[in-house]
């Protein structure tokens, strides 16, 4: 089997993992919000590192990102990224029945907490499905939320891939909440094993 064949098998497997993870994330999100959530069958892309920061959009696009880590068994990072405007929409759906306090900083804190919880549920569902598939327990840390430029957020992923090479394998997973034909929310999930656990990650997948 030459390297290209290996890459194809590998990419199929990564695609399968992304598929399973995204499916569970979409279901969890749908249950939490009480509405339908669509998911896109993910593509696995092999992207040169220097292209990542602009691959998914304008590097200066304001986004909201939620990062959670698994520090046991198979140390890895999971990140949820959505455009800032979509994170507003998501927090509004989540806080729908709550009267926001008049105090603006309190209202903002509530939104942040809602986004952190949404991240927790989406990423938690993703990783537990992946863990089941790989037969390994992958407990997640409390997530951290950041609001910044897409390129700056992607640096986190790029620096981790950068340790092992000049390419990243990313599954372009997407979830959307359709509403009367309008997209109200669209998000991506990235799973990035720590460089030290990449070998073990591939081994558990049978490589």
């Amino acid at each position, binding site marked *: 089997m030459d390297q290209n064949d290996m*890459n194809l098998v590998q990419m199929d497997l990564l695609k399968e993992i992304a598929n399973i993870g995204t499916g569970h994330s979409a279901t969890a999100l749908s249950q939490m919000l009480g509405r339908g959530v669509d998911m896109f069958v993910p593509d696995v892309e092999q992207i040169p590192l220097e292209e990542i*920061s602009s691959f998914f959009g304008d590097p200066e696009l304001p986004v909201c990102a939620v990062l959670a880590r698994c520090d046991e068994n198979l140390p890895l990072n999971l990140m949820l990224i959505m455009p800032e405007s979509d994170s507003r929409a998501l927090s509004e759906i989540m806080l729908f029945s709550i009267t926001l306090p008049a105090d603006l900083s309190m209202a903002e804190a509530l939104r942040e907490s809602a986004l952190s919880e949404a991240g927790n549920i989406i990423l938690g569902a993703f990783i537990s499905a992946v863990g089941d598939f790989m037969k390994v327990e992958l407990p997640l840390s409390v997530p951290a939320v950041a609001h910044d430029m897409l390129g700056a957020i992607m640096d986190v992923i790029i620096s981790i891939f*950068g*340790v092992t090479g000049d390419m990243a394998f990313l599954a372009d997973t997407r979830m959307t909440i359709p509403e009367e034909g309008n997209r109200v929310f669209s998000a991506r999930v990235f799973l990035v094993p720590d460089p030290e656990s990449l070998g073990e990650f591939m081994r558990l997948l049978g490589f």
Partner: protein
Amino acid sequence: MDAGAQKAPERNYSHNVGMGETLIARVPGILSSLGIGSCLAVALFDERAGIAGMVHIMLPREFKSPMGDLPVKPVMPKPGKFADMALRNLVDLLQKEGAAKSRLKAKFAGGAKMFSISRGPNLLSIGEQNIAVVLEELQSLKIPLEGQDTGGTRGRSITFFTETWEMEVRAIGQTPFRI
């Protein structure tokens, strides 16, 4: 569309320095790196020779590959990727283009920590390490540091103007400023 009326004038001499890339510009060239998080944009310039170079650094130094016998092997890194190689390489390139090492000055920005996660690997605070290695390298190359805007938790867009030798830093929710 009146949105067009507000558009910035087109910068014909402007070039984007991508991750791990090294670019050199003569007056009036403009070099920029947009949406930088933990990475760094370092500009070295020789005002008398009218030349500047910028490198978009990703990591402090080359790590030993932990991939073992994986099918995807690391390839030869770009010299701009790692802080320790990047600056020496940039100095060499600038000298070949007519800059004098003794006249070089430096400005740099970036190296933010995007997420406040206390646990986790050093990689989540790679920005600090990038800054430290660049400062060390500048010192050992004896290049004076003329301006710096590093660290913190905000991403930056960085533009270097060879007409004024100024570096402009933009961040979400902040007024752009120049160093």
